[in-house]
């Protein structure tokens, strides 16, 4: 009887202890989900006012366009031509720029987490 009581007590405490070890979970809407995908491709269109970006990418002839929302807080950096990653504005990105972007899915579509300009689609980039 005594053993049963101890086991029951342990089974009640264990989940509480485990939960106490986990970091607190922020509300889902506020959490920037981990990058579930990344893309490297050529910018097709930039709308600085709507803060959106279209990137053409793909494998061989199987091409697709990824549309990204770019919140104002998203870091955009320039590594073109070996630059050290100086911050640039969304409006400075141009069609034909080659970028690398990390992004995640939201109910409203894909949202960029980071954007790096790494080059330009030119014969001599």
């Amino acid at each position, binding site marked *: 009887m005594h053993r049963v009581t101890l086991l029951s007590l342990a089974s009640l405490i264990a989940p509480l202890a485990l939960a106490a070890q986990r970091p607190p979970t922020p509300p889902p809407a506020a959490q920037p989900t981990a990058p579930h995908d990344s893309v*490297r*491709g*050529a910018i*097709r*269109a930039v709308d600085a006012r709507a803060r959106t970006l*279209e990137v*053409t*990418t*793909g*494998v*061989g*002839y*199987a*091409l*697709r*366009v990824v549309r990204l929302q770019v919140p104002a807080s998203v870091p955009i950096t320039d590594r073109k031509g070996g630059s050290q990653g100086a911050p640039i504005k969304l409006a400075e990105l141009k*069609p*034909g720029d*080659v970028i690398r972007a990390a992004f995640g899915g939201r109910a409203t579509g894909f949202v960029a987490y980071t954007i790096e300009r*790494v*080059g*330009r*689609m*030119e*014969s*001599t*980039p």
Partner: protein
Amino acid sequence: MTRGWIALVAICSAAACRRPPQPGEPLRGLSAAERARFDSGKVVFDSAFTPEKGLGPLFNGRACASCHEDPVSGGVGEEVEHHATAFHPGGPGRACDELAALGGPVFQDSVTPLLRAALGIEKEPVPPQATAIAERTSPDIFGRGLLDAVPDSEILKYADPDDRNGDGISGRPNRFLDGRLGRFGRKAFVPTLREFNDGAFLAEIGITSPSVPDEGTVAGKPLPAGTDPAPDPELSAHSLELTDAFVRLLAPPAPLKQSSEAHRGSEIFAQVGCAGCHVPKLRTGDNPIPALRHQEVAAYSDLLLHDMGPELADICFGLATPNEFRTEPLMGLRLAKHFLHDGRAKTPEQAIQMHAGEGARARDLFDSLPPADRAALVAFLKTL
């Protein structure tokens, strides 16, 4: 007598070992494991897909070997497919839009019964935004592993975009969307053989894979529900790798022994300037596969873009303008039944005479040759 037979068998075996690769055979010098992957890859290459196994809903062929089939798997095909893009030079965006948001650049000519029933279409419609539609024949793919193994630096050393040497030839590289050097496809858009193969499973057969996990659209619109019942990915990573091994390890057909006429033709080929773009030999670099490592490949191409004039112009692709095409590799030319990117030339002579732009000078010199010299040059081409 027995000893004589043994000697005869040994001589024949040795001769067979030295025999140059025939179309469809693997490169010489493969390990047993590489040969096994080549053989297994051929099985996937030859496999015909059904809608239940993932075919479509949009497709051009049911198998790789549906289009690369003559005289053996990996060879040429009679099929002609359609690519479309939009070219807007001088506009605010990139000059070339591959129409990726609208189903491009490959617009498939066949649909599965389920898609036909859902949309009432017989092929993927080309959107009105397209400025050109191109026809593309199926080339042979022998020796493409060797082309893949050529370092970028080997290709770029032939680039002369501003024609600084004044020879009228100004090859320039194409670039993929991520800035890497392109080399595969009629416009040299795709950087690697692996990507070309992986992308072709989706673009040509409608097969998803770990490399290309999502079905495309129908001219930019999502597939109607229930038209693609096979679960994704429809091809495993292992099958993808085996197919790549088969294509990568296919040997280029060895050139035929040259007659004295053909030998003279090879010299004329260089004299009239064909070799300015159709560079006879490229050299591969380091490679994990010994049979591809530091090899000389008789590509007869510089893998660069050249302006071929307005008559041949069709679509843009990447940096390639409608006028620009990659120098077509001539290895295996004797197997071709049609010539040029869309098969419009029925003979090598016609193909030469349709060269313009950067090829105009060589074409004019060819035309001015005595008939015997023209015949010699064509005899040489037919040995490749």
